């Protein structure tokens, strides 16, 4: 076995710890700043009036243009020209830099893997390209045997196709830090962040690596906003998770990094205990009618963690504030015998940060475990789901040992993760 030594170390000590983390959001550029803003009840959601994004004003948690992270200052010799990296890549680099700082984790060690989570990555490059080309409308192809569904060849030059790809962003970020192993990219709708954590957890548990640097980001562009608007899924005000009058999501921008390690030097840190994903096999854009599939993932995650429902002290829900998501989650939480456990959703602070959401929310969950504080669900007033839920709506101080994190997304995907205090 090539990695026998790592494998033996991890077998003796199978715990996987959060060695370091970072949240880069409109609320702050470190995890500590973010957590302190949440404790104070500060939300990053504002009304925006930007015709380049939407003809109507909309609510979202966006980076103010001035606060966007500039060209990162990197290791000596790294090319830090600002035009080398897109906003998406700069978010990742800035967040990873912060998480790596003073972490004791060496990205150039071949036992350290980089995992990127995103849904749409550099999609704003498509908007720019379409705008530059003038008329972006589909061009009928008159060649024999071609129908109007087919664009003439060359709509994507090889260079463009390569530059916009998520694997290119991952490579650029990996090269910036000098990672030796090829980076992985998880792109699985709104469970991408949890899936990336779970992927890292399993790579460490199976002894393939000792450390995993897991970073997620998404940028809110016209593409993304128009798509959710087309689904009538955007709330007319800051979103209201689990509330009776909830009417949709609020989008948000952000990046986050969680560094996992099997190295016992991090034994005092919060642990990832287990996780699972599942599929509804029901509908592409509407969640399960029963919640059974998310409940299955919750039960699997608990079993892997060696815990049962009574051990869970709070749930960090997906809580997007769409009618159907919150209803499905309520059913799943009840099926998993957790109706009295305090539940929160952070979407009222961050909006839905897509590929970053699972990471941001898991990092805040870890902070909550460490601090003994459950963050209230901002936007929530009156329970608006058909099943009992204990929605946390004021700041609660309590002894917290175990947290369940859930997420669901388009394509019928669900995910659950269990985090515990050492």
């Amino acid at each position, binding site marked *: 076995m090539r990695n026998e030594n790592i494998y033996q170390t991890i077998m003796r000590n199978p715990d996987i710890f959060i060695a370091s983390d970072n949240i880069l959001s409109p609320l702050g550029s470190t995890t500590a700043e973010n957590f302190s803003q949440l404790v104070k009840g500060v939300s990053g959601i504002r009304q925006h009036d930007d015709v380049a994004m939407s003809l109507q004003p909309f609510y979202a948690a966006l980076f103010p243009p001035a606060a966007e992270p500039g060209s990162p200052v990197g290791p000596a010799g790294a090319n830090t020209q600002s035009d080398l990296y897109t906003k998406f890549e700069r978010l990742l680099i800035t967040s990873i830099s912060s998480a790596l700082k003073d972490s004791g984790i060496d990205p150039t060690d071949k036992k350290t893997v980089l995992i990127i989570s995103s849904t749409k990555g550099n999609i704003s490059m498509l908007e720019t390209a379409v705008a530059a080309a003038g008329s972006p409308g589909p061009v009928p192809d008159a060649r024999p045997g071609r129908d109007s569904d087919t664009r003439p060849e060359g709509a994507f030059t090889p260079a463009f196709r390569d530059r916009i790809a998520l694997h290119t962003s991952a490579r650029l970020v990996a090269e910036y830090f000098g990672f030796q192993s090829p980076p992985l*990219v*998880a*792109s699985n709708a709104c469970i991408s962040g949890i899936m990336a954590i779970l992927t890292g957890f399993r790579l460490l548990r199976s002894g393939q690596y000792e450390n995993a640097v897991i970073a997620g980001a998404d940028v809110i562009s016209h593409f993304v906003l128009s798509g959710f608007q087309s689904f009538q899924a955007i709330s007319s005000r800051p979103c209201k998770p689990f509330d009776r009058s909830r009417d949709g999501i609020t989008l948000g921008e952000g990046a986050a990094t969680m560094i996992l390690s099997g190295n016992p030097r991090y034994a005092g840190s919060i642990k990832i205990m287990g996780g699972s*994903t599942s599929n509804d096999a029901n509908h592409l854009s509407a969640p399960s009618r029963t919640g059974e599939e998310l409940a299955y993932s919750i039960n699997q995650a608990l079993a892997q963690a060696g815990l049962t429902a009574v051990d869970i002290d709070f749930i960090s829900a997906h809580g997007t504030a769409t009618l159907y998501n919150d209803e499905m989650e309520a059913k799943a939480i009840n099926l998993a015998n957790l109706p009295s456990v305090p539940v929160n959703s952070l979407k009222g602070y961050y909006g839905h940060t897509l590929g970053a959401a699972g990471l941001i929310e898991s990092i805040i969950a870890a902070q909550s475990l460490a601090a003994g504080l459950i963050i209230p669900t901002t936007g929530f007033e009156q329970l608006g789901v058909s099943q009992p839920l204990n929605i946390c709506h004021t700041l609660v101080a309590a002894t917290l040992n175990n947290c369940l994190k859930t997420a669901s997304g388009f394509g019928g995907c669900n995910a659950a993760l269990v985090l515990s205090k050492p």
Partner: protein
Amino acid sequence: MNCITASCKISHSSIYRNGQQVFANQSANLPGFLLSAYQFLDNSYPKFYKMDNLSKLGWLAAEVLLKDEIHTRPYRPEETGLVLVNANSSLDTDLKYYETVKEIPSPALFVYTLPNIMIGEICIRNNFKGESAFFISPAFDAGFIERTVNDLLNNNILQACICGWVDLLEEDYTAVLYLVEKKEDGAFPPFIKSMIHKIFQGENE
């Protein structure tokens, strides 16, 4: 041990199952090819017509891969899952969706601007509810698939896994899917990197 109990490859207007060509249509463009393959399979599955090209490609590959055999196996819905990888995510449909934004943004296209939607389509068709994941990679990495799927099977997270590569951009496409199950009788090729690579390259066609 974990074995490749079936494979399917779709490329260059041809469909292969276990290395044998089962369908070819060289005369059509991509949408025409996908439609003719669907008609050849003699399916009645109206949802096919709503899918984008990437989902059609992955769905067709899964149909040919699984035939009706998977449903004779004793697996619960949660015991079968998917691990898929591609290079171009959903870029093909991303542009088609964005072209509708000037007029009326199309929710029917927007839903396909995520690569894992293809997993959802295959799960809906076959009632698979187990662990699934979509990864983006510049090229097919047989070693990554081998390690990831073995981890899921060996830890009993799944009993059967459909895995592989489904990539499509404009007229360029390749789908290679593997059905991986636990078999002891030696009748099937082992799910190891060299065999995965060989089937991907089409060396047994």
